[in-house]
């Protein structure tokens, strides 16, 4: 090591990160998020003046206070948080599976959460919302363990993981249906709203119940970013660089499960966000995981927030669940990606061909 350094270029050191692009993207996204938040607060059945709203945000009391703070704000925040969590979870999953088509909902992880929540609603209809996140988490965890365990055969093939995940998702859907059929009509309709993905009627306790999960797992993922980053390269490369593959993958998977569970507890099964957000983020900032994760989370939040606002206002008095919008936009996008094709297969580290 003492003599291992080539002598050239020792003199000039360029700035460490190419922060530039990432900084701009993040700043723009955060700004967008704030603006859209305010817009979102002001539109609705009664239009609220954004200016007065901003004043309210900074403390002065206006007549809008009640309406805004207790009806719209928690709902928008729930959408925002759920979206952020889904965007982050999607990025983690795409990184560890090395497949840009992976997402928590396509791979059945969300399906596990759905079954768990519907089960909870069926068995304990009056349970406090604070039990929703742990239940969703537990469901996601069981699904994830099943997927992981079943796809494991002397290592993980991303293709196998995708196919097993889809199958587990189908099983979880069957289980959910069973639970629905078995439950009373009012539970059915509550569960249905939840299954479509909706932040309808979210209030402060809902947000407070979901917030620690999303923030906690989000922060943990960000701290773990360098290890998730390295999992994107072929196994030999990362192992030779000193990464402990299996523990890191398990941790990454667990983080993804945690975020998914949190998101589902907040907003139900909002589809395709976990696919869409990481994809756009990847185009914006590349796959260096720390940056990718942050960008994807921001984008996810924005997407869900916008979708919910549109659903709430565009078809008034109908309140269209947010999951419908994200699916309607996400599915064609996914299919486009699929047809563009080049990147779907052969992206595993196992394949031999270049």
């Amino acid at each position, binding site marked *: 090591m003492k003599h291992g350094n080539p002598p050239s270029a020792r003199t000039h050191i360029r700035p460490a990160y190419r922060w530039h692009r990432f900084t701009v993207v993040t700043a723009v996204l955060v700004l967008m998020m704030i603006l859209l938040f305010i817009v979102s607060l002001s539109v609705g059945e009664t239009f609220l003046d954004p200016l007065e709203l901003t004043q309210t945000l900074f403390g002065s009391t206006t007549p809008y206070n009640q309406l805004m703070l207790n009806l719209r704000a928690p709902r928008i925040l729930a959408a925002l948080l759920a979206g952020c969590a889904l965007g982050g979870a999607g990025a983690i999953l795409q990184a560890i599976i090395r497949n840009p088509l992976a997402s928590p909902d396509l791979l059945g992880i969300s399906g596990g959460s759905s079954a768990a929540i519907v089960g909870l609603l069926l068995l304990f209809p009056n349970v406090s919302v604070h039990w929703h996140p742990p239940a969703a988490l537990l469901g996601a965890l069981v699904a994830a363990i099943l997927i992981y365990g079943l796809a494991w055969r002397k290592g993980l093939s991303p293709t196998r993981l995708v196919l097993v995940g889809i199958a587990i998702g189908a099983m979880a859907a069957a289980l959910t249906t069973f639970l629905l059929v078995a439950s009373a009509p009012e539970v059915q309709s509550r569960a249905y709203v939840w299954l479509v993905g909706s932040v309808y009627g979210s209030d402060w306790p809902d947000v407070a119940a979901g917030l620690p999960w999303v923030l906690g797992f989000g922060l943990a993922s960000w701290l773990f970013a360098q290890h998730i980053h390295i999992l994107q390269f072929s196994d030999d490369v990362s192992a030779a660089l000193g990464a402990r593959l299996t523990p890191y993958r398990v941790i990454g998977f667990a983080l993804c499960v945690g975020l998914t569970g949190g998101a589902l507890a907040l907003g139900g099964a909002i589809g395709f966000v976990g696919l869409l957000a990481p994809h756009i983020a990847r185009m914006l900032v590349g796959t260096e995981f720390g940056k990718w994760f942050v960008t994807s989370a921001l984008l996810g939040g924005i997407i869900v927030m916008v979708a919910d606002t549109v659903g709430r206002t565009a078809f008034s008095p109908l309140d269209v669940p947010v999951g419908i919008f994200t699916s309607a936009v996400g599915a064609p996008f996914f299919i486009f990606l699929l047809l563009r094709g080049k990147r779907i297969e052969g992206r595993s580290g196992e394949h031999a061909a*270049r």
Partner: protein
Amino acid sequence: MLLAENIQVGYGSKIVIQELNLTIAPGQITTFIGANGCGKSTLLRTLARLLKPTAGTVLLDGRDIFKRSTREVAKQLALLPQTPYAPPEVTVRQLVRLGRYPHGRWLGGWSDRDEQAVQEALAAMKLTDLADQPVDTLSGGQRQRAWIAMTLAQETDLLLLDEPTTYLDLSHQLDILDILRELNRRHHKTIVMVLHDLNLAARYSDVMVAVHQGTVYTQGKPEKVMTPETIRAIFDVECVVIPDPVAGTPLCIPIATRNHEVGEDAGRTQEPAQARHALELAR
């Protein structure tokens, strides 16, 4: 100082390497040669601690490589696998920065020292101008240089490469091998690699190791290893060995495989067998 002590390696019940002892000479270029499936890649991966032997062990500086923290090992020993994969968006710089992973601190902070290592690796591989290109868009030779730069940023004394010239045309093969020799001569890296081309191996190596049936058949200077007897034993090929008119190293001119049938069938049986089977089924 890297050495394998009486190692036995296998996948499942299949034993690939048996009772193999090998010492890698520091400061030298060592090349493994051998037939397909003889265990040379397995040996390299075992030396790089990616495969754990079922018996025996690998010592790095006198300590068991499997009992040391894998990140500590990665500061001393770098490996370039045969067909490494990186996500398509990754740029050359990002790839090279990956080499700093074992040196990283807990939260992935980035020091001047890290940056310097990356810059030097890029410069040494003449990639500074291409640093912000995605690796996917580079030519085969450039891509291989980028991967080598990644291992350089690791700042290790030992560099292990699994067939670094596969898929490259002749000029790029020579280019990569010249770079490796340069790294060895000027920067005193110990290089261990697997090569398929016997003549290039003989030209560029200080030590050749002929691997046959999971163990070391013979090793030593190219002149000692590249003999008609060795080639016959490990490849089943009759050949004459003459001095390379350019480098003076031994040059192997093959005459014929000793067992013509076996030699020809080995590579090709797969598809016709499948097709035959399919035909039978359709009937």
